[in-house]
């Protein structure tokens, strides 16, 4: 394994978008003396100081604080945090409260997955991986799917946001989760509003899957790319499942499957430390999660390596199916086409749409449940707090919140494991594989930028500090450095997609 000092002496290629405004991910490619890739790394600047910041604060404040840290999926943090408080105070929310939480959570998942497919993953698969860079953006997606469809997406989003504000207090940063339940009951009228939008969401998700079939699956070039070995890793997979081993975003047991798909472990999320450990590398602030028993065997796949994967692809691999009928049908088609488990990273985009349909159907199921309007929505905690672990499936994978407090409920220790940490090792492997395939004898092909980025884009890694996004005026660039650190070649890509060599 490379150490910090030996790395310095290597030839080095850096892909760094510089400004955090476009996310702060940085790719570094180290070359050996022959100019071939020795190791390629993906780095993200993790937020620092969270633990220290949390210490001494009231545990009840954590659902608000943690949801404010992240500008992208605050609802996931709010929910994991609220569940950690349930555990901390040893209190079980009444059925209606649990259902309201799950309803809001699935509403959030519908919104996030839909936006992701159309506007974030879209440039890769709707517009196409080989389309000119200038078209591989939101406008390119709109041009391809049509203004009418894009308008539908935006309208859907608005309705989902209105529902979240209705049930969770605020549309972006929910404020309804409290230890032992939720802050307010759901009126019959509100449940009816959820039912109406849920019906539309189901139709919308079916339409989107249809679009995916038409635009992506009917194009053999895309399908070949999804199946390509360059983006394939045979790792373990993890996700929350219900009692029937169906995908659930809000509650259940964590199930881990082997690279061959067989169940390796199924455990209560509060036992996560028995199964998961974190590995540090000198070149990254981010710790790499791995499974304890196979252990850390470096950046390698296969059953002997403890590297695992989370997010839509992993959730579908870790489950035996979907809990709702239409989504299960979509799931069978997905597995029927790609096999199971699916090891192709780029299949995340398809898996996300199967989940979109599930989330929409689940919204409907919950809104239809007469118990959801029950007015008993809080169990008052009586136990002295000590330790609590809360887990949900965030859009980008399993999210852990773990708090310890003194007897007054003041935080003494807080730990978060976010989705991207679970996936970090596999992302690093993905980038390494693509770089090895494309960089030979110090020759950097212009196309490598796009291919390397595609290797991590499918995971949609959470770049913690980029809480909002103005477009950067900085170009993306690759630096090729000699052993003494001198720049040999600069490869720069401008905003218009033009690539220059200096």
């Amino acid at each position, binding site marked *: 394994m490379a150490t910090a000092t030996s790395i310095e002496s290597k030839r080095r290629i850096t892909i760094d978008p*510089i400004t955090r405004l476009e996310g702060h991910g940085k790719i570094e490619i180290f070359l050996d003396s022959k100019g071939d890739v020795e190791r390629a790394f993906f780095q993200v600047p993790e937020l*620092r*100081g969270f633990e220290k910041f949390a210490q001494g604060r009231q545990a009840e404040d954590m659902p608000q604080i943690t949801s*404010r840290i992240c500008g*992208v999926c605050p609802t996931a943090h709010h929910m994991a945090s609220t569940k950690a408080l349930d555990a901390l105070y040893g209190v079980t929310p009444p059925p209606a409260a649990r259902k309201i939480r799950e309803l809001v959570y699935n509403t959030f998942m519908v919104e996030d997955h839909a936006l992701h497919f159309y506007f*974030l993953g879209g440039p*890769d698969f709707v517009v196409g991986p080989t389309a000119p860079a200038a078209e591989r953006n*939101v406008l390119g997606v709109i041009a391809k799917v049509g203004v009418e469809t894009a308008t539908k997406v935006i309208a859907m989003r608005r309705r989902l946001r209105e529902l979240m504000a209705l049930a969770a207090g605020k549309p972006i940063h929910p404020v309804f989760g409290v230890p032992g339940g939720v802050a307010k009951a759901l009126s019959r009228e509100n449940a009816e509003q959820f039912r109406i939008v849920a019906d539309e969401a189901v139709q919308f998700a079916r339409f989107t899957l249809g679009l995916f079939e038409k635009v992506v699956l009917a194009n053999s070039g895309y399908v070949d790319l999804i199946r390509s070995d360059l983006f394939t890793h045979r790792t373990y997979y993890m996700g929350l499942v219900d009692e029937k081993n169906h995908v659930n975003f809000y509650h259940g047991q964590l199930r881990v499957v082997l690279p061959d798909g067989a169940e390796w472990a199924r455990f209560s999320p509060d036992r996560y430390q028995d199964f998961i450990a974190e590995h540090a590398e000198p070149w990254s602030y981010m710790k790499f999660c791995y499974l304890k028993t196979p252990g850390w065997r470096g950046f390698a796949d296969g059953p002997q390596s403890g590297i695992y994967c989370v997010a839509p692809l992993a959730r579908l691999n870790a489950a035996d199916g979907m809990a709702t009928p239409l989504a299960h049908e979509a799931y069978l088609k997905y597995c029927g086409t790609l096999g199971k488990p699916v090891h192709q990273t780029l299949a995340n985009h398809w898996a996300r749409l199967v989940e979109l349909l599930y989330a929409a159907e689940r919204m409907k199921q919950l809104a239809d449940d007469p118990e959801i309007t029950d007015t008993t929505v809080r169990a008052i905690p009586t136990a002295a707090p000590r330790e609590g672990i809360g887990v949900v499936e965030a859009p980008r994978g399993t999210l852990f919140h773990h708090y310890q407090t003194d007897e007054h409920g003041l935080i003494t220790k807080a730990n978060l494991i976010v989705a991207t940490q679970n996936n970090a090792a596999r992302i690093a492997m993905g980038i390494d594989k693509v770089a090895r395939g494309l960089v030979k004898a110090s020759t950097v092909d212009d196309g490598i930028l796009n291919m390397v980025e595609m290797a991590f884009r499918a995971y949609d890694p959470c770049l913690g500090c980029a809480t909002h996004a103005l477009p*950067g005026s900085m170009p993306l660039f690759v630096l090729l450095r000699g052993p003494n650190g001198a720049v040999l070649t600069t490869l720069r890509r401008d905003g218009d997609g033009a690539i220059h060599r200096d």
Partner: protein
Amino acid sequence: METMARVRLLGLGNELLADDAFGIRVAREVHRRLGPGADIVTSSAAGFHLLDDIVGAEHLVVVDTVQTGSARPGALRILHEDQVRPMPDGSPHFLGLFDVLRAARKLGLQVPADVTIIAVEASDCITVGGTMHPDVEAAIDQAVELSGRLLRVDEACRARS
């Protein structure tokens, strides 16, 4: 509101993250000086979450932090939308404000035709509970002056019309 706002101030940032508090603090101070009549919003969110904050304004003044590495912390820059080149392949996770704007215009939504960005060079935006760099904090006043002026010009125009 009975009339559509002409200029809206959008303070972007996160008060929990050291220098990233800049946009929020500037917006709050402008609000204090101009009173409730001024159209001022703040957000710690990203991507499409920002859509709700920009719909309905004719012009937008955005106050935010940047980290270009090519200026000293606290240096202010004023940019217009057409001076900012989009990055075609950043992370898909963080759709930029201008991507959202372009998409919204394409879809015929009522979003600003004109955007001015007041950006401060930040030194640290990743320390939770961190303090602001003194030079970044010192730039708040100037940014308040600048954005206040942009909003007041708008008020004067409306008074005349």
